[in-house]
């Protein structure tokens, strides 16, 4: 059984309390707290001690995806002060201005591979350049982004092979041509299952589809089919 959970951003955008509320009682053990905008980060971090996260064994935090160089230093300071060392911090590589700001986070920093709109961080080669600057950083593998870049899943295969030792966190959703995160389609499930064997059972899977509360259980079931722990052929049979 893979650890599985949701991103609060996918469920309720910046309203993480609403996202947490929707998740109450669900059979999940992982969560990603999302602060995709700079001004969302401080309120989230300052209320962390008041949040009941006891149901989750795997907790991660998604850092803002766009900020300027001054904000970058402030973000790093906030994260350092508030985020527990064992929580991965997911960061978009194209948001980084100065990699040295992020060096101290070491393996806590999980660099996410990007969708095809972004100029960097999409392929194994592009991720290599980033990991050269942040050698201890780990990988948040967004399988939907990888499929959007290369629907044959060859790039996904290459990233997972090359950075197997760095894989810490997985984002799972269907990413459409407009780079929106959607519920998994049959085609996406089929495509993702082709590289499922390269994702260790212990790595948490965070669902990013923009869905409503009543669709959550179905999405979890789809996720299990997309990343089976045994060959897809045996699931279909």
């Amino acid at each position, binding site marked *: 059984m893979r650890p599985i959970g949701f991103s609060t951003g996918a469920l309720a955008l910046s309203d993480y309390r609403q996202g947490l509320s929707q998740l109450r009682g669900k059979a999940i053990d992982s969560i990603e707290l999302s602060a995709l905008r700079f001004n969302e980060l401080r309120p989230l971090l300052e209320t962390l001690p008041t949040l009941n996260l006891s149901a989750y064994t795997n907790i991660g935090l998604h850092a803002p995806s766009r900020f300027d160089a001054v904000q970058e230093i402030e973000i790093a300071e906030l994260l350092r002060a508030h985020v527990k060392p064992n929580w991965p911090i997911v960061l978009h590589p194209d948001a980084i201005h100065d990699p040295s700001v992020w060096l101290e986070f070491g393996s806590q920093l999980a660099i996410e591979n990007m969708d095809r709109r972004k100029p960097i961080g999409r392929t194994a080669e592009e991720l290599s350049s980033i990991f050269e600057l942040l050698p201890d950083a780990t990988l948040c593998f967004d399988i939907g982004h990888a499929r959007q*870049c290369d629907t*044959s*899943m060859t790039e996904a295969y290459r990233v997972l092979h090359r950075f197997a030792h760095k894989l810490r966190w997985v984002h799972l959703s269907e990413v459409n041509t407009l780079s929106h995160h959607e519920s998994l389609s049959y085609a996406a499930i089929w495509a993702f299952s082709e590289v499922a*064997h390269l994702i260790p059972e212990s790595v948490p899977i965070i669902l990013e589809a923009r869905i409503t509360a009543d669709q959550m259980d179905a999405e979890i079931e789809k996720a299990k089919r997309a990343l089976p722990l045994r060959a897809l052929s045996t699931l279909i049979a």
Partner: protein
Amino acid sequence: MPEDEIVESRQSSHAVDQLAAWVGGNWQNLQRARSFTRLQLSGLRTNLRDYDNEDASIVVFGSLARDEATPGSDLDWTLLVDGKANPEHLRLVQAIRRIVPSDKGPGVEGIFGNLAFSHQILHCIGGEDDSNANTTLRILLLLESRPIGNKEAWESIQSNILRRYIDEDQGLWSKSNTRGVPLFLLNDIARYWRIMVVDFAYKQRERENAGYALRNIKLGLSRKLIYASGILSCFSCELDFPGKQLFKEGNAQRTVEHLRETFRKTPLEIVASTLIRYDTLREPSKRLFDSYDRFVGLLASEEPTDNGKCPRKRLNELKPDELAADSLFIEAQAIRRDFGAALGDIFLRMESPIQQLMIERGVF
């Protein structure tokens, strides 16, 4: 290959230079063409930088993709779309046509200088809807293409084409088959070669022999080269990974990755990087590249021949009744024969793993 020669040959990272060092070749025409190609590509990238995006790659074919461009080379390109259809795509094509020199516009059969969508290329492999143009475009995307600027659409389409060839090759996945040569792909590459040869005769008739001599020489050299590189690319799945190692994981991705990396190389690089491994093929390898270097030199020459025209123009304008007595065509035919003989030795006559695979998988 002796160790000192391997060290010497690896001083240059380019496979053709490595082969030259190994066989004692001096292929200056190929080096000049490579430099000229880089200049041309750089100019194109600058001029076309605003005309593509992550869903549409501008892709060049022919000598520009092979690193063999010379001053008179054609400029064959396509706007390759892998995304939502958009009315603006045609405007992009029209804008590109205005930028690319007017005497080097769309090809006569309409494959180049146009718009191409991934759907047709990817889904119509074989069957009624797989036209000659579709097959040609699909195989050229593998064997002889290069994106200018944004490469995402080109890369994605190339990977998906390869995935189809590998995923759907039932024989490849059969345990009783001990050779990892992708026959679905190999057969389609062979089909493309036969299309080219048959279309050569078709064009001769359609165009009333116009350009016959130049097309004849190109068919026997640059066209045959890409066929040979396609065969060797398929064989590389077995030669580089004997015992079907590529297929052990049970899915296509590793093979697709290998072939995608192989097809990133130019045809000359693919051939050179394969031949350099086999001592028995050293002598015909030199003959092969010697003749190809002469061919590229002949096409590159801007020196007027005895009728005042440069070789490329003269060959292009020769009439059928002039061929037998034309010294330039006779010289070009000799180059073509030397190249063909060397290929015959490498693939069919001299003992090597290539010959063995050619007999086992390449003929029937």
